[in-house]
């Protein structure tokens, strides 16, 4: 029976009959899957009776402000606790948050330095706990309970993140919830480190924890903890970080009790709710300030981490009055056997975070920033995947989701009489880093990721260049880690750790900030390996703004079949501590050199083999011909830009020895280039008549709409299909190894045929 049939049948029932049916269904539910009513509603709810009583009584705003200050201090304190004590690399470098929610589970405040997405998503499992476990006689809800969860289908970004959620009671009454979340990494997936690109079903993705109680009376249940430790590669990590998150929540509860003791429960309840309502009112006011209309943007993801294909991310923003609609329809369909799908709740939380970080960073961080905004998607698409779709590497579309509002909102906000932040080209938007796993030099089994994921280059602004390797796109306070610290713990050596390398930037009047190059190798372990989980090796990932160019396309480079430590011992001058020189010179005898797309699944690495990646640049802003020649020279001097590009892209005429600009010759060269543009540019109508095609290029594996968001193209060549966006079904991809075997078998057959013919 479909949900629609149930709904129609339910409508014909009397109230008594409906109550009977509800009771029957509640008592006879086979499996409590994620609740659609909870999971598809991102907005905060109406006031509770208690909140209405408090706020209709005109509470003292000064008292509320004092409460707010105390709560933020407590959130900041608990963030620092987790960062100082946490074991996961993500915890050490800031991929964490603590948060406070109203009694009904609406997010009110998060730690100021924290990763917004982690708390922004936690209201979903809290609402699940409140709806299902609180009244269930086998579970219940009591003081000192702590619930753990990580399954994004119940509300999470991806299942490497684990949360501790605790209810807070005052005189027996539930008054709020607190949470602490860390990107833990290892979770028992088919690849170490918790982000399995190789997962072909949800069963390959490791722990899938629906919310359950692991803490009773403030004590961790050892039986359940042991089960979790037994399910992952790093039982020490699993134990330690549950304790850390529990203690952060306990500290938050202590601070909340102190606030209530001083200011009273009503001031506390009123403050939590007022935080939400004030943000909601301010967001609606800011939307009204914008021009009415529609801005359309699109982006293309160039791989599933298993194969290269182009996946469209279709996005438009429509503003009318105080209403804003984000329309993601026409995007790529879901892949039933690839782990890059995302749930709708994860998508919405990342979009909301983009608004909090890049559009209105001055607002208090809570869910109300997104309550006035509506999101439209195609169900069973990459962005709104079904319950059965794997999603452990949802970062693939989600990292883009932070960029989409940045691209679109710049065109709504440029005209605004008042700016709340700078006009910004996109931050780099790929999770470029090394994920690792194996047995360490200390004989411990582990799997996790390097914090270099946090080194994304910043986008250019309308009045200045982007910052180099400044932060991950999802947070602004995360660090890239201490390499020496990592090397003490892991059998990994950085031959080049964080080197800004020239010419890899989004060019423009203001350029994007660069990412950094890394060379990494395994040492002191014969059981070790790496994976990477990025895209953007064929089609750039971050685009520019208002005439600025985007990031380049970044490959993974490897030097295999060599032990670089032997080379460094016997002939150190052969080695180059520079990716481009090392790869182009190919000086290491017997070594195998290659470049690959950034979606490498887990691969064993012999000691001394070299893996190289480069963190990405943010987008550029404005016309390259308007870049101040002195800024161009500064980039040349700092070896961020080669002299050739200064001449050929920026059209600066200068003395290469002194870097002194010839201003008159530069102006003339730029004028000549403007004239050249006029000569080579074609009138729009004439251009599109030749350019536009009815469908994607035949040989290009393409997934998503083309000119009509209702029609979804899937595949290439003879096997390409057209799907109806309203009735999307998932796409099953062939195993790339099977395709390769078939290709090789065909070659063998052809060789045999020729041999027989000869």
């Amino acid at each position: 029976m479909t949900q629609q049939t149930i709904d129609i049948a339910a409508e014909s029932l009397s109230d008594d009959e409906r109550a009977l049916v509800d009771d029957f269904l509640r008592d006879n539910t086979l499996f409590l899957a994620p609740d659609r009513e909870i999971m598809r509603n991102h907005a905060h709810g109406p006031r509770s009776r208690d909140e209405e009583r408090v706020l209709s009584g005109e509470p003292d705003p000064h008292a509320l402000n004092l409460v707010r200050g105390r709560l933020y201090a407590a959130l900041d304190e608990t963030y620092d606790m987790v960062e100082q004590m946490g074991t996961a690399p993500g915890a050490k470098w800031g991929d964490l948050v603590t948060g406070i929610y109203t009694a009904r589970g609406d997010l009110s405040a998060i730690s100021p330095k924290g990763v917004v997405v982690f708390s922004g998503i936690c209201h979903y499992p809290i609402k699940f706990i409140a709806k299902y476990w609180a009244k269930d006689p086998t579970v219940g809800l009591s003081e000192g309970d702590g619930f753990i969860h990580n399954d994004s289908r119940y509300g999470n970004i991806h299942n490497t993140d684990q949360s501790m959620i605790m209810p807070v009671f005052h005189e027996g009454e539930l008054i709020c919830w607190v949470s602490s979340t860390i990107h833990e990494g290892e979770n028992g997936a088919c690849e170490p480190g918790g982000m399995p690109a190789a997962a072909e079903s949800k069963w390959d993705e490791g722990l899938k924890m629906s919310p359950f109680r692991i803490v009773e009376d403030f004590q961790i249940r050892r039986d359940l903890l042991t089960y979790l430790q037994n399910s992952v590669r790093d039982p020490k990590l699993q134990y330690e970080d549950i304790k850390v998150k529990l203690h952060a929540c306990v500290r938050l509860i202590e601070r909340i009790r102190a606030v209530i003791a001083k200011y009273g429960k009503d001031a506390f309840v009123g403050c939590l709710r007022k935080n939400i309502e004030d943000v909601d009112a301010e967001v609606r006011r800011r939307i009204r300030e914008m021009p009415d209309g529609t801005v359309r943007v699109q982006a293309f993801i160039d791989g599933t981490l298993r194969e290269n294909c182009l996946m469209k991310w279709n996005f438009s923003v429509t503003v009318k009055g105080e209403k804003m609609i984000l329309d993601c329809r026409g995007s790529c369909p879901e892949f039933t056997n690839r782990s890059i799908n995302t749930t709708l709740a994860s998508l919405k939380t990342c979009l909301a975070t983009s608004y909090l970080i890049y559009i209105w960073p001055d607002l208090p961080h809570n869910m109300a920033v997104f309550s006035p905004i509506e999101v439209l998607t195609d169900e069973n698409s990459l962005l709104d995947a079904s319950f059965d779709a794997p999603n452990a590497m949802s970062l693939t579309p989600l990292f883009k989701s932070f960029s989409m509002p940045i691209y679109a909102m710049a065109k709504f906000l440029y005209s605004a009489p008042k700016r709340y932040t700078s006009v910004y080209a996109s931050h780099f938007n790929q999770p470029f880093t090394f994920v690792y796993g194996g047995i360490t030099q200390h004989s411990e089994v582990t799997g996790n990721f390097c914090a270099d994921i946090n080194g994304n280059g910043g986008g250019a602004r309308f009045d200045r260049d982007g910052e180099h390797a400044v932060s991950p796109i999802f947070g602004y306070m995360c660090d890239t880690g201490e390499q020496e610290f990592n090397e003490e713990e892991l059998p990994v050596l950085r031959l080049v750790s964080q080197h800004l390398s020239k010419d890899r930037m989004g060019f423009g009047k203001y350029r994007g900030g660069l990412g950094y190059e890394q060379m990494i190798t395994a040492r002191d372990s014969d059981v070790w390996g790496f994976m990477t989980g990025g895209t953007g090796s064929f089609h750039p990932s971050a685009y520019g703004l208002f005439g600025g160019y985007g990031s380049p396309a970044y490959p993974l480079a490897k030097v295999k079949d060599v032990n670089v430590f032997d080379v460094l011992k016997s002939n150190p001058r052969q080695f180059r501590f520079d990716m481009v020189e090392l790869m182009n010179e190919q000086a290491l005898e017997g070594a195998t050199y290659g470049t690959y797309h950034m979606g490498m699944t887990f691969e064993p690495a012999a000691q001394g083999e070299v893996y190289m990646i480069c963190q990405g640049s943010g987008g550029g802003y404005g016309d390259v011909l308007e870049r101040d020649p002195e800024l161009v020279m500064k980039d040349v001097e700092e070896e961020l830009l080669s002299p050739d590009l200064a001449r050929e892209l920026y059209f600066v005429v200068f003395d290469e020895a002194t870097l002194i600009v010839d201003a008159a010759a530069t102006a003339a060269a730029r004028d000549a280039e403007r004239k050249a543009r006029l000569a080579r540019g074609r009138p729009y109508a004439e251009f599109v008549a030749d350019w536009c095609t009815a469908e994607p290029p035949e040989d290009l594996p393409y997934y998503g709409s083309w000119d009509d968001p209702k029609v979804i193209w899937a595949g290439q060549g003879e096997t390409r299909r057209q799907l109806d966006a309203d009735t999307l079904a998932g796409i099953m991809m062939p195993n790339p190894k099977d395709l390769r075997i078939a290709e090789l078998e065909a070659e063998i057959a052809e060789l045999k045929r020729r041999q027989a013919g000869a």
Partner: protein
Amino acid sequence: MKVFMTEYLAIDLARELWQCRRCDHEIGPARGNYKEGLLVYDRDPREIHRPLLDPAKYRLTFSPHPRWCRILEFYCPGCGTLVETEYTVPGHPPLHDMDFDIDALKAQWKDRPPMHEPAPAPADEPPLKRHCHGHSH
């Protein structure tokens, strides 16, 4: 009154026209797609993002693949300013990216004072004044 819509585009509300902010070239009707009044060039992305690794040795070189990516460059026909870049797929229709309700825009700006330049970004936070105790006191 002119409303600054992007770094290079303005809308003249009274005349309902898209205009170039560098040379005042009249690009086209504000109720239409401004791109229709610009010149377009199909840029091979390898000309901008040049190969850093030797293309004779490697398939992936830091350059986008020209069959997977093209850059549409939109130039002002008056002054040659690069107004927009659009990273796209060969043959994909250019986006009608900005489609504003001109009547609503007029109503919105009716009571707003004209702006002579775009609004500044919020001022950077002033540096914290540190209260230091040296050893010399």
